[in-house]
């Protein structure tokens, strides 16, 4: 081998090798690029020099062989490329994972057919190849592209994603965003359940209409201040909901197209007529989300909610281990990590998916309003927390000492109620539902994106909006044995496989070499 091609190969290897070694820091560096480029030039020059000195092709037989084989190789290459293109088109695959992890469930397929039947533009799953989980998720996303007629995959690195998806993209934690037209929905952890849920919103006939009561000092949907709800309004629109204001004093009934009503911390009393309107709405199977606030004394808390089985004491929940996420940590800032596992409102939330509820009011259950009603507590403050009735002092940040002795008990912060309608007890879509969350600030503009606040709120509105079947799509059933080998077993196998077996093979090699020499 002459110097030129050898040097070329070395330079290409160093160039590509240095790229692999440093690609996590930056892309192709000047060093790597220059090595590859110069290496290629040297290789070509070397090949030309070699070809000029190459002997043996002067005969017609040699030329005939060369030409024939070039033709054969090109033909076979073309055939292989053709086969490859065909294999891409048919997308045949065998999923040998124990839980068929990369094969879509019947529920997802059914949803895809529903989507196809409805027609319209396809739903695009924008896939970000640079994401941390991209390698693990690629096959699952491909499964949607292969098995879902109404879904297309858009690789963000190859085709620029829509502006709405770019707006939603935050970090490499964003793996998949579902889009249709300019409306996009980010998929949290990219499991089949979450991707299907994201696709599902595009199958709905119309947006879920959410009415926010106004006129009693409730939080303003349009307010862009830290405590305002403009972020909630934008998020709801992004998620396929239609938030509207409901002016209680001016209405004789809740609008017929209301899918749910949100009462966000009324500071003042509601008129008896307004309370009656809300009672009638619930009695005919209405849905209501209540966001409470410590320190408020509206008759909504003292009269209306007890009628439906909730007891919201005029108190505040405190916990000394308050959130360091806020600049001014006070005991009123609760980190919540204890949830009822089977409640639809707290589904997907667990010990590692905390929510931050500042100024929360205890949300306990009262007297059950009817025999068929089902009331549950869904989220709890930590065992170190306590309830203080000195609300003004606690909210002002003054030190409010915990009671000297108290029985350990769970303080509820979220509660739910289901009230089946007479004659249709079995049909849960007809029942009235109420979710009471003991805090209104957790979805304010300041805290909406904090921890899992957004998820708690969305779970609640989805359940109330009859969208819970999408939340309920279960993950695959395989539960891995997470601890297959103890450290002792691991080490024992290591000795056998990394030392004993190689040692035996090496001894065999020495024996073979000795026999050959003999």
């Amino acid at each position, binding site marked *: 081998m002459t110097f030129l091609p050898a040097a070329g190969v070395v330079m290409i290897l160093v160039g*590509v090798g240095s790229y692999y070694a440093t690609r996590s820091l930056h892309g192709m560096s000047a060093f790597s690029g220059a090595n590859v480029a110069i290496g290629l030039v040297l290789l070509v020059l070397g090949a030309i020099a070699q070809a000029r000195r190459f002997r043996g092709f002067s*005969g017609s037989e040699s030329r005939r062989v060369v030409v024939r084989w070039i033709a054969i190789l090109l033909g076979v290459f073309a055939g292989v490329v053709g086969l490859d293109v065909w294999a891409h088109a048919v997308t045949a*695959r065998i999923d*040998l994972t124990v839980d068929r992890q990369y094969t879509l469930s019947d529920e997802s397929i059914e949803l895809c057919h529903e989507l196809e039947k409805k027609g319209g533009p396809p739903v695009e799953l924008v896939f970000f190849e640079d994401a941390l989980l991209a390698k693990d998720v690629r096959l699952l996303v491909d499964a949607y592209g292969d098995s879902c007629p109404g879904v297309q995959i858009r690789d963000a690195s190859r085709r620029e994603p829509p502006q709405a998806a770019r707006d939603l993209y935050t970090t490499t934690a964003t793996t998949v965003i579902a889009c249709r037209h300019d409306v996009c929905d980010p998929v949290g952890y990219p499991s089949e359940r979450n991707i299907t849920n994201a696709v599902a919103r595009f199958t709905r006939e119309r947006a879920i209409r959410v009415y926010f009561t106004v006129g009693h000092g409730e939080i303003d949907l349009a307010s862009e201040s830290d405590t305002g709800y403009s972020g909630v309004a934008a998020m709801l629109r992004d998620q396929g909901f239609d938030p509207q204001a409901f002016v209680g004093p001016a209405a004789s009934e809740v609008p017929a197209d209301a899918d749910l009503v949100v009462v966000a911390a009324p500071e003042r009393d509601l008129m008896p007529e307004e309370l009656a309107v809300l009672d009638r709405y619930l009695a005919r199977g209405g849905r209501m989300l209540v966001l409470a606030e410590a320190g408020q004394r509206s008759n909504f808390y003292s009269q209306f909610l007890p009628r439906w089985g909730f007891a919201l004491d005029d108190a505040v929940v405190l916990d000394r281990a308050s959130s360091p996420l806020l600049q001014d940590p006070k005991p009123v800032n609760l980190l919540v990590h204890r949830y009822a596992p089977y409640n639809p409102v707290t589904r997907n939330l667990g010990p590692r998916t905390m929510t931050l509820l500042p100024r929360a009011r205890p949300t306990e259950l009262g007297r059950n309003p009817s025999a068929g009603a089902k009331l549950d507590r869904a989220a709890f403050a930590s065992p170190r927390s306590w309830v203080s009735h000195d609300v003004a002092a606690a909210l002002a940040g003054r030190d409010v000492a915990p009671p000297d002795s108290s029985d350990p008990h769970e303080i509820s912060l979220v509660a739910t109620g289901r009230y089946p309608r007479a004659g249709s007890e079995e049909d849960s879509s007809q029942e009235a539902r109420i979710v009471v969350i003991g805090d209104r600030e957790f979805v304010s503009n300041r805290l909406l994106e904090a921890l899992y606040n957004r998820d708690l709120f969305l779970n609640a509105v989805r359940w109330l909006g009859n969208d819970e079947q999408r939340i309920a799509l279960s993950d695959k059933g395989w539960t*891995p044995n997470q601890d297959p080998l103890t450290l002792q077993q*691991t080490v024992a196998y290591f000795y056998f496989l990394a030392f004993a077996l190689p040692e035996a093979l090496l001894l065999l090699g020495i024996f073979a070499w000795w026999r050959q020499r003999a």
Partner: protein
Amino acid sequence: MMLRMRALCRKELRQLFASPIAYVVLTVYVALTGIYFFQHLVSYNQLLFVYQSEGMTGGGFDQGTVPTRINVLNEVFVPSADDFGLFLLVVLPLVTMRVFAEERANGTDELLLTSGLRPWEVAFAKHAVTYAFVALLLLGSAIYPAVVVLRASLGMEHLAALLLGQLFYGCAIASLGLACSSFTSSQIVAAVLGYAIPFVLLDFAWLSNTVSEGVAAVLREAALLSHYGSFARGVIELRNVVYFEGVALLGWLLSVASLELSRAR
């Protein structure tokens, strides 16, 4: 013809296992895979310990809440499979470099080609024996993963998918190495080319920023790594099988062409 092929394969096998290089390669590969699998297992055990001790120390979390996402498949099996693929790239050229080049250097290739054997038969036997050696390498390295698969209820089908993928991938690399070996009488040249070509073909991500989107897509399709990953995750895709078999076929045809050329000169 079958008799001739069988005799040829037997000769190749004898030649392969008469030299210590096959044993050295087996030793290195089994040791490397054992060590790396062990390292992944130890890291995984430490990760489990962190999760479990967090619960025990009362850091605000309940006990026994290791997320199901943290499991042997994601933390040990898949990263190990990626490592094993790179190790195959490291050891296989050491085996393939001598297969044709040694015959050419000793002049025994002329004997073979004038003994009534056709070039494709010679190339076929050499390729088949090398592929069998690749299979042997994989079996040696599969013991540790097999134990973990059984204990973690991962399913033997998943292990079969991984081994099949490694076999396809290994055969493709070996085939390229054999093609390089068939064009030269120098084992060093054969080894350097046997490393360089698969190494460059491994992944074209380094070029993707400098070429157009269409070219980048073609390069991605031509890269070895983009076809290997799904096997480790337990999925056998037709397109990946076609790709690896296509590379192996082209490597074999190049070897045949080289032998035909030698005979014609």
